[in-house]
């Protein structure tokens, strides 16, 4: 029989490895808080495999100095064994925290951490914008360059740490030769961190196992060119790198590519398996030329293999001659820049839906669009869509033109199971979805409800208003 004694302490008999895995499921403060359970638990958290410090989620009222001290304390005491993941998200932009940040990254690299994320974005509050940083953290020069004695540099950044790290350094000397120093890094993500062309080149050539690179809100990056050695990269995301002019990489394994920013020349070489493409225009790029034509020009050779496509809403003529998206399952349109939705716009969108015969889910996210008068003619059906099951329409105001579009989808998507109508504005911040209040939400919701009530019962049951 299994013992079922309630006063016998069985949990403390589990190995450090299992216990630390369990602690990794808790928020960092709770995981560290277990140190006072008993002497057995004193150091269990120092073996955790994942460390996540999210100031917004877990420490909303902590001052940035205290946050910095806390992360450094944890990094100093952590044993650095099998640390798979280090994620730090906070919005301090005081230069006295910068030496700390250097050390955190150095620590992660020394530990052979596979996934490193540093997000210093100021845009993380739901209300959106909350000010420009006065100073922006930059990766130390040559930090990722092993040829330039990066190991010594890291050593230098760690020298203020206590004996734990000294052990770490001696261990790293044994386990990681200088040559494969960065080879454990598989996933790097930097947001609101200044990287220059040389930094990215160092990362691409030295992090030889790198599978994902995410760079967001970085205006010091101009050009990425890496065409002589094939990269292992499966996912590359460059969001809001305002100064970018050229991207040229040899990445035969690339599956996911995301770009948000000004028009640049993109040359993806040797890419054969691209299935997930995001190209959108941030609100701020007002002089952006016709987005969709630009997507078509640069990526049309991949259209037949794409499974996921996210792009901007544009005027109808931009969508003419859309090549067939014969494998597309998910299509998302963003209307951040589109201040007016016209009938021609919707004709364009429906033609992309119709060019995607196996589409499963469609999303349209409108953003602060102005009402335009009249519906301007009905959408003409080009035959039923057989596979479309889920539709999401956000930023819905109940304008006649939106009602027409929803009706068109209900009439033509014969396999439709669910249509979600959201009256708030939803927009993308990097990979994150954000919600902004629609200041006339009560009215919008009422319109959406009225639309729902007016439908036949079979269609009414498919609609969810939120």
């Amino acid at each position, binding site marked *: *029989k*299994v*013992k*079922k*004694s*309630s*006063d*016998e*302490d*069985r*949990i*403390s*008999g*589990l190995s450090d490895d*299992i216990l630390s*895995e*369990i*602690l990794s*499921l*808790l*928020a*960092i*403060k*709770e995981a*560290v*808080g*277990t*140190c*006072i*359970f*008993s*002497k*057995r*638990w*004193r150091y269990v958290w120092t073996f955790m495999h994942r460390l996540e410090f999210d100031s917004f989620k877990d*420490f909303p*009222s*902590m001052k940035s100095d*205290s946050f910095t001290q*806390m992360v450094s*304390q944890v990094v100093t005491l952590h044993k650095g064994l099998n640390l798979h993941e280090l994620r730090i998200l906070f919005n301090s932009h005081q230069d006295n925290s910068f030496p700390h940040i250097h050390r955190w990254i150095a620590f992660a690299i020394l530990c052979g951490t596979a996934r490193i994320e540093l997000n210093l974005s100021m845009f993380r509050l739901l209300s959106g914008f909350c000010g420009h940083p006065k100073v922006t953290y930059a990766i130390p020069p040559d930090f990722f360059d092993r040829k330039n004695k990066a190991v010594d540099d890291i050593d230098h950044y760690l020298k203020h740490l206590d004996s734990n790290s000294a052990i770490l350094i001696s261990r790293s000397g044994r386990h990681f030769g200088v040559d494969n120093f960065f080879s454990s890094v598989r996933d790097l993500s930097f947001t609101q961190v200044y990287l220059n062309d040389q930094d990215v080149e160092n990362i691409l050539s030295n992090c030889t196992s790198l599978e994902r690179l995410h760079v967001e809100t970085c205006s010091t990056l101009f050009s990425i060119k890496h065409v002589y050695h094939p990269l292992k990269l499966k996912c590359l995301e460059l969001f809001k790198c305002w100064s970018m002019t050229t991207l040229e990489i040899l990445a035969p394994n690339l599956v996911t590519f995301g770009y948000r920013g000004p028009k640049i020349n993109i040359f993806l070489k040797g890419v054969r398996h691209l299935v997930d493409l995001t190209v959108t225009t941030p609100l701020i790029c007002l002089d952006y030329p016709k987005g969709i034509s630009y997507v078509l020009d640069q990526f049309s050779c991949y259209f037949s293999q794409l499974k996921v496509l996210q792009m901007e809403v544009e005027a109808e003529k931009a969508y003419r001659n859309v090549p067939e998206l014969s494998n597309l399952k998910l299509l998302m349109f963003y209307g951040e820049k589109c201040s007016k939705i016209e009938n021609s716009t919707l004709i364009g969108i429906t033609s992309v839906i119709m060019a995607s015969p196996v589409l499963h889910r469609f999303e349209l996210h409108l953003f602060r669009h102005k009402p335009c008068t009249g519906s301007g003619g009905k959408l003409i059906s080009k035959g039923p869509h057989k596979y479309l099951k889920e539709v999401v329409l956000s930023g819905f105001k109940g304008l006649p033109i939106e009602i027409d579009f929803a009706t068109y989808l209900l009439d033509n998507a014969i396999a439709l199971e669910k249509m979600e109508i959201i009256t708030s504005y939803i927009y993308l911040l990097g990979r994150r979805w954000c919600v902004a209040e629609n200041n006339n939400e009560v009215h919008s919701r009422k319109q959406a409800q009225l639309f729902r009530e007016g439908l036949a019962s079979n269609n009414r049951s498919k609609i969810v208003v939120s």
Partner: protein
Amino acid sequence: MSNTSENPNPSSSSAKITLKTSDNELFEVEEAVAMKFCTVKQYFEDEKDNDVAARGSSTVIPLPNVHSAVLARLISYCKKLPQSNAVADNHEEEETKKKERKQYGTPGDLVDLISAANYLDFKEGLEFFNQALADHIQNKSVEYVRKFFGIKGDFEPHEEEKYREEYAWAFEGVDED
């Protein structure tokens, strides 16, 4: 696809594997279930290399670290394994999963299940039971956790006070329930 234990290969769909527990009980389980346990899978593959596979289902795989009562629960969990272990994407789903995890009752049971899942290298099971255990630490007071798991607080009061001060941030504003 609702039946996850269904073997896609019809010729071996009825194949059974016999497992022997620490208390010498024999369990005859479907191959698809047994293969979720990487330790068993590994044993099977090693045996194949030694050309003992000819004996087929007559091979008995000993599991000296697993008690029959625990193995029975693991197998029953395995059979109703959800299709994907994807993170619940809404609050309701998360609550359902939490309730499901609560069924695995006493701390002793959970520890046995975790140890066995770890020994058997049963990834989905280990994740599930680890989370079930973490549920009993999350948003709980130190006193609750000690009492629930029978952990004896063996720090001197001044020691505990010292750690509470050292990691003061870890004890601020935790919502206990």
